[in-house]
Structures are given as structure tokens and as C-alpha cells.
């Protein structure tokens, strides 16, 4: 609907004090985005261990969000599924992740992880500034955090991304394109 941005949110934005100013606004915005993508994404049932298993967001490598991701995730649900965050120092096949976030740390780790989950129902999210691009890649353009979607890669992994989210992306690489 129309922009019913609660004035509360805005006033809070203006006035609230963030004593832990170490996490930049950029990552606060990214941390808010990631869990909000989830309701727009449909995984095959096989992607979850159980019908009520949570959607797990795995943060690979260092945590650039300073714990902020958990806060947003904790407030949201995807259908009946809770959203949880796991931190993985390195790719770990034993952990069931539905979303993997790859930060700016090491390009080779990101590429390796992208390769490892290629074709699997895992939504890969890459940070801005990385050469490697996941199904969703953050882009910082003109002082705004936006994201591109690689729908082809998602389709390859059996993940469906709703047209609403595609519409919000800056650029979409559609299915059927190499």
C-alpha cells in the first residue's frame, strides 16, 4: 500500500541513540534486509529437515553486522518457521543453511562457498564489493544499499523468488540466461 511508514520509526531514527556506533549504517541496513528477503523466497520442502524447522541464515566468516542480524531475524517469522542465525567461521557442510551470507573478507572463500552450494536450495547472499555474486548480491549505489538478483542461479538451486522481490531489485538476471 501507500507508504505508511510509521512516524514512530522515523522519529526513532531521528532521536534514538546508538551507543554501539561501531556497526555502520550500511551494515545495519543490510542486516535489516536479509531476514526480510525470506518471506519472498520459497524453498523446496527437502531444503528443511522438518516441516517446522527454522530458516537458518548462516554468516560465513567474520560477522560484519555486530549482532544486528540476529535482532532483526528474531523479530520475524517465515510462515510457521522461525528465522535463526548461525555463524560459520568456514564453510561447514554439516550445518543446514537456507541462506548463506558471504562478507567482504576473503574472495576465495566466497567463491569456494558459492561453488560448494551451487545447484542446492541455498540462497547465497554476497556483500557489496565482492567479485563473486550470489543469488542476491548487495550493491551500494549512490549512497543507497540496493540488491541485484540472479534468478537463474536461484532456479538452478530449486529456489523460487517472488516477483515482488524481483521488482524491488535493482537488476535481475532472469532465468534461462547463462
Amino acid at each position, binding site marked *: *500500500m*501507500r*507508504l*505508511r*511508514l*510509521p*512516524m*514512530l*520509526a*522515523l*522519529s*526513532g*531514527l*531521528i*532521536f*534514538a*541513540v*546508538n*551507543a*554501539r*556506533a561501531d*556497526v*555502520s*549504517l*550500511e551494515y*545495519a*541496513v543490510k*542486516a*535489516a*534486509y536479509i531476514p*526480510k*528477503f525470506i518471506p519472498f523466497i520459497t524453498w523446496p520442502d527437502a531444503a528443511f529437515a522438518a516441516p517446522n524447522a527454522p530458516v537458518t541464515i548462516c554468516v560465513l566468516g567474520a560477522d560484519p553486522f555486530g549482532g*544486528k542480524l540476529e*535482532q*532483526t531475524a528474531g*523479530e520475524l517469522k517465515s510462515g510457521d518457521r522461525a528465522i535463526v542465525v548461525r555463524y560459520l567461521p568456514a564453510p561447514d557442510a554439516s550445518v543446514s543453511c537456507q541462506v548463506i551470507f558471504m562478507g567482504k573478507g576473503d574472495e576465495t572463500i566466497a567463491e569456494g562457498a558459492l561453488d560448494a552450494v551451487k545447484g542446492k536450495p541455498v540462497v547465497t547472499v554476497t556483500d557489496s564489493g565482492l567479485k563473486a555474486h550470489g543469488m542476491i548480491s548487495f550493491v*551500494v*549505489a*549512490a*549512497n*543507497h*544499499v*540496493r540488491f541485484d538478483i540472479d534468478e537463474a542461479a536461484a532456479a538452478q538451486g530449486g529456489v523460487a523468488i517472488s516477483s515482488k*522481490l524481483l521488482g*524491488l531489485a535493482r537488476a535481475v538476471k532472469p532465468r534461462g540466461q547463462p
Partner: protein
Amino acid sequence: MVSASLALAVNLLAPPAHAQSVNTDIRQLSIEELANVEITSVSRRPEPLADAPAAIFVISAEDIRRSGAINLPEALRLAPNLEVARINGFSYTISARGFNSTSSANKLLVLVDGRSVYSPLASTVFWENLDVPLADVARIEVISGPGGTLYGANAVNGVINIVTKDAGETQGALLDAVAGTSDTKVMARYGFAPWDGGSLRLYGQVSHANSTSPLSTLDVSRTAWARNQAGFRLDQKLDADNLTLQGDVFANSEPATESKRNRGYNLHGRWSHALKSGSSLEMQVYNDENTQIVPGQLREQLDTFDLQVQHNTALWWNDTFIWGGEYRHSKEAIYSSTVFFANPVTHLDIENLFAQDSFRLFENLRVTTGIKIENSSHSNVEFMPDLRFTWAVADNHMVWASVSRAVRTPSKIDRELESPGVLLPSPRFHSEKLTAYEAGYRGQPLADLSLSVSLYYNLYDDLRTTFYQPVTIMPLQLRNGITGDNYGAEAWAKYALTDWWRLSLGANWLQRTEKLKPGRRDMTFGQSLGQDPPYQAQLRSEMNLLEDWEFDAALRSIGHVKARDATTGNTKVLVGAYTEVDLRFGWHATKTTEISLQGFNLLHARHLEFNDPSGYAPQYVPRAFMLNLRQSL
């Protein structure tokens, strides 16, 4: 400072309102809203507004829409740290922390996207010609207190930054039409993407405000105002660069009598470039021309060229350093049959350099310090230093304090206006000066309550007097002769009672003491210092009823204005205290159609807001009703 939002990136004044790293609230934004959050305001170290060591109030686009404001001055009533008084059909006077009148509201700097609309010719802002389409305003940042270090001269008592939306945010067609008992307005805008990475909007706006009714039966002046304005904004995004080109052209007049005709245009380009190192470079250039004509009496013309450059970087680890400079040239011309200038045409050159650094002294204590050095051909070199502290007391509680100096530089009128036998020119008139001490608290005492309190103590020197001769009275001469010792407080709070009902409360209180310096005289003591109510208070309520209805109410209460009579020396009440109520019903009929019915100043058929015997004849502000349609396509 290059652009408004740019300068804000720095310290004194925070980045865009929605650019705050306040995660609780970022979390509540939708994906669409997240995409609009400006994350780095060039300095690449965005600062929470919460951390800005200044009294800053931000009026959001949503605030403006819900207020139903028909024009910019009415929208500025939302800021509890401003005094807004309507004079007549077309004219307003606006100030912060005192000195509000047509001739003395010369200490408030106003910028539109970084372009100054403060007239150095008259030392004032001609609000009647500032017709920014409100639907295109992203936010208005209102800073009370000095901003000289970043903004330069004349940012003495405050700065108003009007920031318009990026053209990318105003795509598609919009019709904003108002029909009312005292105003009509039609604004149409169309935004599109002409090529990759570029977005453009074009708009036109036509409005009419009725003449207001006079206080005195002798006053036969007509003060209706017909405005015609059109403009555009083009934004081009590249990898590391943002380019903006915008411009407006207007022609306004008193329609019945043509007793006042104004016209003008501006063209304004901005460029920002992000450097690899994380620092950034900004540049802006504009040309602004406007002409005011009172047929048979006066023709005033101001033609300004301005160039600014700013570099945002770091000197060492974890600080924010900005520095830059500005060159401005104004051609000022006044041709008048009633007053006289030895040189009707003069040229004003301004050059300035500034630098400011912000660094963390201790874990919770940040220091911001800087200076601007400005040379103007109308005055001497002026120094505007600034020192500010921000102390994060605890989560959600911040205390700040500052000391700063600002100046109001002389205008052509101050120095050169003369009238044989009546007024002598004043070639030695120099800057009015302020040393300001400020402190404040900002925070969230409760989860749903945000609060800001600011205190200030202002020491003025060399304020303008109208000197008279000991025996003959005439000729008069403008001189620097008054010191001031003013203090006051401003506070505002926002409280969300429920997710559909929100309250905002704001108030300010001002205590003024001005004294003539020994040996000086003032013909109009008191009047030349403005008309300020000792207090102002406002309460706003915004309710979202059902899914599609909004019900908003605003109550404001303004104290009386007293002034000392120039001849008798007695004080008298010039404007009585008043309380008024505005109401608004808004209905989102469809996703693209919004209809609202608004009532303004409902408690009285009319009330007086301003009465300065030396200015416009006082006229009443009427009760008004308006119907507003906003249709987007």
C-alpha cells in the same frame, strides 16, 4: 559545505534523517524503505542524528503531508525550534531563538539543496518567492543555534535545510490539487528515466492565496499572491559519482493590483565523487537570479553565482575531517524612487575556507571542532570557530555541549541606504556577532518515547541600531550599538501510544535582554530587535484509523508579543497570545488517490500573528478550510 545533506554528513549536523544507524528503527523499515535509506553521506562515516551535537529538528515528508501545509512557511510551523508568523496574504517572517520581524529576521540561513536563498541584499529570506513543491520535499532539517563553521555567515541563530527528493524517488505522474476558502493550488509533476542511471522530474505549480483582512480601516493594501513556478531535477548515478542538475523558474505577483511583482530563476549543478580511499569530493555550482518590482517605487535585482568545493576524508584513524571553500559573487541592484543609494549597483564578493575535524577523545566522548574564515567585500574577514562535545551517557541517552561564534554580515541596505535629510549612509557598519553556549540532551527514555531538550545562552554584540541626532533627531543612521544577553530552552518529544496513534509535543521559551552600548542611541528600540513571544507550544496527534483513514490534529499556543514604544518608552502588547487548532481527515480512496479535508485556525474566525509598525501593515490570519486531492499515476 557543498550540499545541504553533505554538510550534514559532518558533525554538527547529522546526515539525512533516515540515514541514522539506529538499528531498532532500521529494522522496522520495509524493503522499499530500506532501499531509500541513505547510508553514507559522502563522509562515508554516517553519523546518527542522535549523535549530532546541535539542536536539530527534522521535518519528514510524511510530517508535511500529515500537516496539510499548503506552503513552505506553513510546513515550518512543524518545527518547535522556529518562530513562524504570517504577516499577510503573501508574507511570512520566520526566525529561531528570537529576532523575528521582517527587518530583523536576518540571522537565519535558509538553503534549498545547498543553494542559499538568504538575500544578502536585504539580509532576509523572501518566503513569498520560495515555492518548493512540498510533494517533492524529502525532508527539512531545522537547526537552531549557530552553524557558521559549516554554513558561513548569517547562520547565526539557525539554519534551515530544505532537501528535495532525488528524481529517482519521484518517478511517474502526480497531481496535487488544493481548493480552499483562502488558497488554491495545483501542482503537477512527471518523473521518468530518460536513460540508464538517469532520472528526471519536471513539475509545474500554480497557486493563489487570498488577500488577508487588515487590522486598521486605513489599510487598503491588497496582499493576495499568485504564484507560477516550474522546474526540473535530473539525477545521474554512476559507479563512484552522483550528478544532479536542477532548476526552477518563477513569476509571482499581487494579482489584483500588480502592486508587487517578483520573478526569478536558478540553475544548480552538484557533483559528488567517491574516492577509493573511502573519502569523497563534492562540488556544486549555481546561478540564481531574482527581481522584485514594486511599480513606481522599487526594483531590486540580485544575481548570484556560487561555487563550492568540499573534501571529506580522515586525517588519522577513525576521525572525520572535512575541508573546503566557496566563492560567491552577487550583483546587487536597487533602483528606488523612495530610498536612495549612491551606487544603485554594487558587487558583493565572498570567499571562504573551512575545516572541521571530529574525533573520539574517549570511548564515549566525541569532539568536533572547526573554523570558517570568510572574507566579504561588505565587511572584514570574519572567523567562525566552533567546538562541540558529544557524550554518549548510556544506550539511548546522549548529552552534548558547544561553544561557537557566528556573525551576521552587513548588507547593502545596512551600509549604503540613504535618504537626504532623513538617513545617512553607514559605510562603517560592521557585522553583528554572536557567541553561543549550548547544551542539550537527546535520547529515548522509554521505548516509544523520544525526547530532545536544548538550552542556550547567546551573547550578541554590535546589533543594529537606528541612531538619531541629539537635538534634531534627523538624519538617522544605522549603527552597531546593542548588546544582547539572551537565553532560552527548546524541547520536543514524540510518543507512540499505539501503532496507530502518535503524539508530538514541542515547546520553546525565550528570555531576552538587550542593552544599548554607552553613548549609543536607538530610535526604534525594541522594534528593530524583532517580535518574539516568550513561549510557544504545540501538540500534534496523528491517528491511522482503519486501513485507509487518517485523522490528525494540531494545537498551537503562542505567547503575546510585547514591544517598547519608540516614543513613550512604555511597553505594550502588539500581538495578543493566541491558541489555534488545525484538523485534517485524510482518506486513501485507492492506492493512488488520497483525498483530505483540512481545517486551519479553527478556534477563531481570524487572529493576528504579527504587528510591526515599521513593516507591512498588520493583517489578520483567517480560519480556512481546504480540500486536497493527491493523485499519482
